[in-house]
């Protein structure tokens, strides 16, 4: 019996562990090793070069700029998305024509949620095509067409949303926000609904207004969800590969233009790997991305740590 049980456990673990080891863990480990070599990928031979790849990396202007762009995404994508999602979630749950200090949802809040959430089930590839069309740099693009109609933009001199170095990053942020707000709205909204109503009623008796009950009750009790949202949006901001590589003009293969103004770490890495064949160098970039992700998570968890409120 006992022996049979061990055989059962081993049998159940065999395939999942094997797959996981071969395709996930082993490549992760190998990356560290390869990042110390001058491996070119195509050739089977390579030699140990120590930290050369890392020193080269910090002198690589394109990569260093890419890090800054990622950091910009890291700051603005979570802030804008979370603020909008909180705002709309609050409107949905407390904007109702209600009495007791804002605990009633607006009519049709279910309907709104269905619409808001929908972009989340669409792939970023679809986002790329959709917003490629929205941002078209003539009056055939939705944004330019709209602005021309309003007379704000000259039809012969439309806005080059994706070709202006100081506009392209914001254009990309807008896509991510558009895609993500609904998801976090539903997340926050579910958390808001789980807050017991008698807390609001108690606050109301004590004379709290809507704003006060939002900042003093709702927000502190939502803090866990906000933290989760921040971590997930942080991961999105560190990636950005698909949008940058497909929507921006090629500074090389995999987008990043104009003139590397929208380059992110992932596009630089993929270009070095798949186009230039610099596998060792690309591995070093992967390691840097990991380190930044880890630093980000630690900083985020520390900075947003609050006393946990049980209810």
């Amino acid at each position, binding site marked *: 019996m006992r022996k*049979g049980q061990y055989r*059962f456990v081993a049998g*159940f*673990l065999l395939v999942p*562990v094997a*797959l996981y080891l071969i*395709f*996930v*863990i*082993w*490549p*992760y480990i*190998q*990356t560290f090793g390869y990042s110390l070599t001058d491996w070119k990928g195509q050739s089977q031979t390579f030699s140990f070069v120590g930290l050369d790849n890392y020193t080269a990396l910090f002198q690589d202007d394109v990569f260093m700029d890419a890090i800054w762009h990622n950091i910009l995404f890291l700051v603005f994508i979570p802030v804008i998305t979370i603020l909008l999602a909180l705002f*709309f979630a609050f*409107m949905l749950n407390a*904007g109702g*024509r209600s*009495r*007791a200090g*804002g*605990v009633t949802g*607006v*009519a049709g809040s279910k309907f*709104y949620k*269905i619409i*808001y*959430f*929908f972009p*989340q*089930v669409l*792939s*970023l*590839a679809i986002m*790329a*095509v*959709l917003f490629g*069309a929205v941002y*078209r740099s003539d*009056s*055939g693009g939705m944004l*330019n*067409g709209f602005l021309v109609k309003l007379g704000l933009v000259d039809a012969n001199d439309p806005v080059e949303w994706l070709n202006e170095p100081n506009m392209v990053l914001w254009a990309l942020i807008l896509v991510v926000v558009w895609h993500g707000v609904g998801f976090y709205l539903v*997340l926050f909204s579910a958390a808001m609904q789980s807050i017991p109503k008698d807390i609001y*009623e108690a606050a*109301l008796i004590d004379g709290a207004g*809507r704003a006060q009950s939002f900042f003093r009750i709702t927000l502190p009790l939502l803090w866990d969800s906000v933290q989760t949202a921040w971590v997930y949006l942080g991961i999105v901001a560190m*990636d950005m*590969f*698909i949008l940058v590589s497909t929507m921006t003009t090629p500074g090389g293969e995999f987008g990043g233009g104009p003139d590397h103004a929208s380059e992110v*770490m*992932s596009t630089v*890495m*993929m270009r070095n*790997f*798949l186009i230039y064949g610099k596998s060792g160098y*690309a*591995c070093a970039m*992967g390691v840097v991305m990991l380190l930044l*992700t880890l630093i980000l998570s630690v900083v985020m968890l520390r900075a947003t740590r609050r006393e946990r409120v049980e209810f």
Partner: protein
Amino acid sequence: MSAPIKETAAIPDQRSVDKRPARAGERRGEGVVLNAFSHGFLAVWALLIVLPLLWLVLSSFKTDAQIAGSAFGWPGNWSFDVFTRAWEKGIGDYFLNTVIVLAFSVPLTMLFGSMAAYVLARYEFWGNRLLYYFFVAGAMFPVFLALVPLFFMVKRLDMLNTYQGLILVYVAYSMPFTVFFMHAFFRTLPTAVFEASILDGASHTRTFFQVMLPMAKPGLISVGIFNTLGQWNQFILPTVLMQPQSGDDPERYVLTQGLIQLQQQQGYATDLPVLFAGVTIAMIPMLVVYLSFQRQVQAGLTSATLK
């Protein structure tokens, strides 16, 4: 000051607003303003979501000249020809490839993920905790960290640009999350049922498949939805792993890759309606699935994030 509270209980209906005592008038006025205000904002955001999508779908019925002309021209080419053209231009194949891959990768992910999660959650053996953390740790790392060696690993297995290669990689990369979530779920299941089943003489394997797995159905649905959407929308892994390896190696692009491919080709041959029709085709199954399982999708995705 107890009046407003009593009202909440006593007047649940909007229509009875007028009959309320005058005392609550001030608060009600504030409520009405906020209500109009919030409906305004909510409606604007809803429009901002719907209009671009609708605009894109309508654009597939435009001609190239119309698309380049004005964004708000009404489509003039009401023929479903463009969808046939998009389907034949590759969308059909890309669609089929995605379906083939997911038909295997999602069930296998769920099977292997639940198997591992189950023994980790319910059996005590040496190294159990360690193995659990080993699985869960994978969720922490960006996929980019593994890409280069992963490519050469799949190459060595001779599985580049094959369905089985992509399927195995999808299954492996879905493990951390699936194990994590199902582990938590199996822990909540009652022990009594398990013991009864063993006492009745069922083997451990049989107990798992016929007793425990059916009980875990709600969890399986949540993770299943999460994995299906995640794998359906995956882009980076297929971009690296599904490139034709030689001249006579056929393209086996998945849908996301194919759409991007179609978009990039627009630089050379302008047939934008086909691109938009392709996106429309790609959106339809998502829309159908989403509208029919709307509650489960929202619950599945958000609870998956929170756990």
